[in-house]
């Protein structure tokens, strides 16, 4: 009989994330998604679950292109996510955004971003709003280790520190930016030093252990809420390729095998059992439920309808503003007149 503990919740969240990723990867391979790009967060589930649990419902966040797991951990409806990734009208963004541009204002998701580092300064702005409007909300930017070499990150850190904003920077350090291992992208990987040099509270934590991530994140997030912005690097391993089709020929099978051993789900599972908080059968049931849930999202997304062609002219500007005239209409008008 499983006891209701945070770790069990984490386990469920992480399993749902992984199951989602497995299903979306499968849909991608079968040609069912919109977009040539699909980035899986398998191996990074503890960063998503642990940090998210340290946030409050009113908190806001942005993610990088590998953000499915984070959004799920923040409460996303997986069917609407799957539909968005499939480019369908019922998706979170009406099929206009896709995997790399999922957002949901209701859940505080200010958006995934396909520009490495692009969403980072938005949390500085969200922090500014929160401080000025007194909402008490913290804003968290999630990004990869690749973004550690984007200058914009340091501008953002500097402003957050200077203005003492309720802002947290979370680097999901999965060791790779595409094919580049982090030590080929920078000389110094002790990223917490950088953050401190700009005035942030900073920590690095092992992304295999979701409880450790949660503890570290709680300290940083609470600190930010109290006016000391912070930084957290979660060290993990990107289990698969950069995109779904990337077979990672640039790293050795041994390295991959070792990396995949650092599995936050297996780790949590073992700990749950070891501590007597759950047992294999109960955890299997969670796994099965997650699989069923995510399989249903695929059916949902597949059955959903594509957006109407004319919808492409909507949402460029606010409702009520004139839509851009289509090229076809313009040509017909011009040729009719002259």
């Amino acid at each position, binding site marked *: 009989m499983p006891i209701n503990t945070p770790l069990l919740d984490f386990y469920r969240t992480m399993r749902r994330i992984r199951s989602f990723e497995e299903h979306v990867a499968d849909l991608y391979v079968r040609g069912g998604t919109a977009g040539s790009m699909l980035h899986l967060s398998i191996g990074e589930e503890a960063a998503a679950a642990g940090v998210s649990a340290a946030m409050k419902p009113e908190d*806001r966040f*942005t993610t990088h292109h590998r953000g499915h797991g984070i959004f799920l951990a923040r409460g996303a409806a997986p069917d609407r996510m799957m539909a968005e990734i499939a480019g369908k009208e019922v*998706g*979170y*963004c*009406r*099929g*206009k*955004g896709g995997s790399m*541009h999922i*957002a*949901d*204002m209701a859940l505080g998701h*200010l*958006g995934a*971003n396909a*520009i490495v580092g*692009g*969403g*980072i*300064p*938005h*949390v*500085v*702005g*969200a*922090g*500014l*709003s*929160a401080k*000025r*409007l007194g*909402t008490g909300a913290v*804003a968290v930017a999630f990004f990869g280790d690749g973004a550690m070499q984007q*200058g*914009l990150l340091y*501008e*953002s850190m*500097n*402003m957050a520190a*200077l*203005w003492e904003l309720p802002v947290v920077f979370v680097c999901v350090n999965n060791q790779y930016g595409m094919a580049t291992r982090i030590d080929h992208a920078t000389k110094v990987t002790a990223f917490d030093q950088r953050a401190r040099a700009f005035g942030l509270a900073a920590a690095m934590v092992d992304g295999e252990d979701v409880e450790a991530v949660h503890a570290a994140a709680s300290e940083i997030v609470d600190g930010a809420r109290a006016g000391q912005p912070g930084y957290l690097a979660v060290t993990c391993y990107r289990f698969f390729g950069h995109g779904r089709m990337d077979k990672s020929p640039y790293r050795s099978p041994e390295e991959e095998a070792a990396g995949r051993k650092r599995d936050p789900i297996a780790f949590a599972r073992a700990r749950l059992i070891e501590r007597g908080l759950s047992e294999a059968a109960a955890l299997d049931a969670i796994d099965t439920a997650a699989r069923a849930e995510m399989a249903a999202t695929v059916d949902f997304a597949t059955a959903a309808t594509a957006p109407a062609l004319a919808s492409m002219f*909507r*949402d*460029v*500007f*606010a*409702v009520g*503003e*004139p839509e*851009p005239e289509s090229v076809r209409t313009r040509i017909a008008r*011009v040729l009719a*007149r*002259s």
Partner: protein
Amino acid sequence: MVEITYRDALRDALRDAMAADDRVVVIGEEVGAYGGAYGVTKGLIEEFGPERLIDTPISEPGIVGTAVGAAMTGLRPVAELMYVDFLGLVMDQLANQAAKIRYMFGGQIGVPMVLRTQGGTGRSAGAQHSQSLEAWVMHTPGLRLAMPATAEDAYHLLRQALTLSDPVVFIEHKALYARKETADLTRAPAPWGKAIVRRPGRDATIVTYSRMVHVALEAANRLAALGHDVEVIDLRTLAPLDIETVIASVNRTGRAVALSEGPLTAGVAAELAARISEECFDYLEDPVIRIAGEDIPIPVSPELEAGSVPSVELVVETLTRMLSR
């Protein structure tokens, strides 16, 4: 009616908008105690405090990105870019983020921010501080673009921009700040997005905006003395573009000049010429003539700088040539 400068009108607009709407904050380099590099925000910090006149580090991408995030979460930021020449640093945040967020997110949210900046020649500020880069903005779907020529428009367009739900790039002209005019700012303004005929005329139409409006008007005056009656249209906003007003005029005059300070090639004058040529084809007696900046970086030497952008003389010469055939 008051005597007011373009600079003071801008300040009044900010002040009135900030007084009317608590959510308006100004964020940029030296916007606080210093009062802005061109003095536009001078004194506002005393009225509204450093919480609303937010001085920043020299971090342009960060500033614009911060404004984007603030605009998505309840504020109405006016981000100031000291020179439009620094657009190159912020085009990602402007064009990939601010401009696309509403669209990419399926209409969930807009980015109601204003990016105030200034451009143009006239102060011999060199190649990296004198450009007219509005074409980059105009070419970006999802952005609005205002370029006032007068103090009255500076006031009203900025007020209007601060009511819109989408990002507006607001480009002032450095050579206009000290320009004085008699204006009635309490009079109901022209609607956002509408062009204004600054001078009616029968023989030809000059379509322009920002500082070049005054070049056109001066040229039209000189042309009048030569017996040519030239209409001058001030577009006021380039996005939206009020092509109807332009079409009506050109269909009447049969001749059009597209006048812009920015470089000729692939610039705003090209769009205007293309639009007019397609919309007014049967009415045009001459090709639409573009008078624009030379396709060169702006030299620092004052003589060369002045020579690199359209002058009253060139406009007069061009229209005389057109109208004397």
